[in-house]
């Protein structure tokens, strides 16, 4: 069974194949009728045990643009409240008849468990602080559109890396495509052990700034401890925020990415968020195209790129 659970160990050729297809589907999305019949008759289910609106909408838009049907599951309206376990939930939904599951869950590894129990392909829509592979693919697509390739790009990922599945997925995908990745965070937000990771680490953003081609900002995750892991939001902004001043010190060709939702005034100043060098909305648009490519490939479609 073909799944997309992690970018760790994903071969460069596989990543590029997703990106190539996503570029082609991006063309489809710009047509007057942005829809192709590639997955007509297929059903894609989104099982989001952790609340999320935008990622779910992005997957649903992708499925519909391929003419697939969609079903969705949310824990707040489900039998989970009645005490049903994850396995029973998954098997029940699968028994309704579906062809692929997208699983988001607050616990690391949950999509792997689902992939064990289910008999359809599973896409990891984000598990705990572990992996979020489609986010990494859309980020790589966004950078590739801007720079042509990722080889040799110098990228800083800034913020709460310790609790970030986006960072963990991007580290593998970006470096697999040839980029050099630096992690920038205060010690309390860096993973405790990064030995063996294909990255360098620093807690001095300004030192790295002038050399960078891209700055990837992570959201300050208030719900994961917020201000208890650094002294104050003001201090965080001063040391790690992408301020107007820092934007000026970036090279003119450099870009700013953010997986959203952004917290303006903490990790990103409003002026930066609205600057043309911030590619945040391109990332969102590319998210739909990348997810089309993933659904299409996992459901057996031929390479379209």
């Amino acid at each position, binding site marked *: 069974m073909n799944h997309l659970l992690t970018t*760790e160990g994903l071969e460069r050729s596989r990543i590029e194949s997703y990106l190539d297809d996503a570029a082609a589907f991006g063309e489809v999305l710009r047509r007057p009728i942005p829809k192709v019949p590639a997955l007509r008759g297929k059903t894609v289910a989104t099982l989001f045990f952790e609340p999320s609106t935008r990622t779910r909408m992005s997957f649903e838009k992708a499925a519909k643009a391929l003419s697939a049907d969609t079903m969705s599951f949310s824990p707040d309206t489900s039998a989970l409240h009645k005490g049903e*376990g*994850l*396995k*029973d939930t998954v098997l029940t939904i699968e028994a309704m008849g579906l062809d692929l599951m997208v699983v988001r*869950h*607050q*616990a*690391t*590894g*949950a999509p*792997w*468990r689902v992939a064990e*129990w289910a008999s359809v392909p599973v896409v990891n829509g984000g*598990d*705990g*602080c*572990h*992996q979020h592979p489609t986010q990494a693919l859309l980020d790589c697509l966004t950078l590739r559109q801007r720079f042509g390739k990722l080889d040799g790009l110098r990228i800083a990922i800034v913020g709460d890396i*310790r*609790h*970030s*599945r986006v960072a*963990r997925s991007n580290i593998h995908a970006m470096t697999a495509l040839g980029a050099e990745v630096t992690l920038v965070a205060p010690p309390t937000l860096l*993973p*405790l*052990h*990064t*030995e*063996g*990771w294909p990255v360098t680490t620093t807690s001095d953003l300004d030192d790295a700034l002038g050399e960078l081609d891209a700055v990837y900002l992570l959201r300050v995750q208030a719900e994961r401890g917020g201000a208890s892991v650094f002294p104050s939001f003001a201090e965080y902004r001063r040391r790690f925020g992408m301020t107007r001043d820092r934007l000026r010190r970036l090279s003119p060709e450099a870009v700013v990415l953010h997986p959203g939702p952004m917290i303006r005034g903490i990790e990103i100043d409003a002026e930066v968020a609205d600057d043309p060098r911030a590619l945040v909305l391109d990332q969102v648009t590319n998210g739909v195209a990348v997810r089309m490519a993933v659904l299409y490939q996992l459901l057996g479609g031929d390479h379209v790129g």
Partner: protein
Amino acid sequence: MSAERPLLITGGLVLTDDGPSAVDVLVREGVVAALGRDLAVSDAAVVDASGCWVGPGLVDLHTHLREPGEEHKEDIASGSAAAAAGGYTAVVAMPNTNPPIDAGHLARFVVDRGRQVGLVDVAAAGTISARRAGAMLAHLDDLWDAGVRMFTDDGDTVADAGLLRRAMEYVAEIGGVVAQHAVDPGLSRGGHMHEGALSSRLGMQGIPALAESIVVARDLALVRLTGCRYHLQHVSTAEALALVEAARSEGLPVTVEVTPHHLTFDETQVATMDPVFKMMPPLRPASDVAALREALRSGLIDAVATDHAPHAAHEKEVPFEEAPNGITGLEWAAAAVLTEVALDQTGFFAAMSMRPATIAGLGEHGRRVAVGAPAHLTVVDPKTRWSPTSTCSRGANTPWLGRPLTGRVRLTVLGGMPTFAADPLGVS
């Protein structure tokens, strides 16, 4: 077989007062009736123990039988069957049941249920704190009167040093041993696995080795203060072992147990994200596993204790982080120890029976095989290769099913009665 029929165990190497001896063992009316070469008895049930070790019945210091309150996971009947199949003739039932065993009548219930089932002597451990809530002392003297000799809040650490000190002062006077599940709650909060490179990679919060050793260091200071006997449960780190070693050379009354799973598996298993590898304390790096094996071999670790912790299948059919801690192990603890640690016969029974019986105050158990002594015996083949395929426990949350092992329990005898036999008994 009837209670009256004698039992003759032939051809084995028997752990006697003079060390391992090649003698037959005749069991009659619940006691060892004779030891000698080529014993001939008519109408006895006969067990051919050629190539096997015969020794005192195994004693587990750390069993979760789940009754009362969580009988969907295990009950005293199913847990006793698993214990007998694992060669055990006595187990100490942990008190983290519902309700917790914090008073004498509750301990008596557990012991009585064990006696009704009759497959293994069930000793009840009592809690240290009332309702196991970590605030006030349990009815320690009442528990003692009900036969409790081990006091523990297992499953939770007694974090309040003042409470633990009072418990130690009290237990030092009435007798028994204070046993600690040593995992600092602050350092382990939110953690699910060993803190290290793998936890960072998986994005899971880790539990540092320090969470264990910091509790042990503090507790040893309280032992020095109170003189209370102290037993460290399920040690998992070399750091904590070093503290125990220093305390022992100082003369402090400290004992320590290790589980079969901490002797067998290291933290890399967690990369599978299979909750069968989730337990507390967590699996540690290979360097700790090596230190545990060496400490068991050298005798620094007194005892192997299973921490047999059954859960219903559906409770483990969840993501790793949401799964309960614990794995089962009564049935293959002996095999796991023989597979992982090079112990001779005396060393094996010392760690699996004699020292645990002493720690738990179970005077009838853990004695070398001698004429006139109660016939609590285990026959183990230390060389057989096999893989477990089924379990008597209600919980199947174990990584040992299907795993190759060397060494197997062939016979368990409780008070002269076979409670488990791997092969049908013959008749002379």
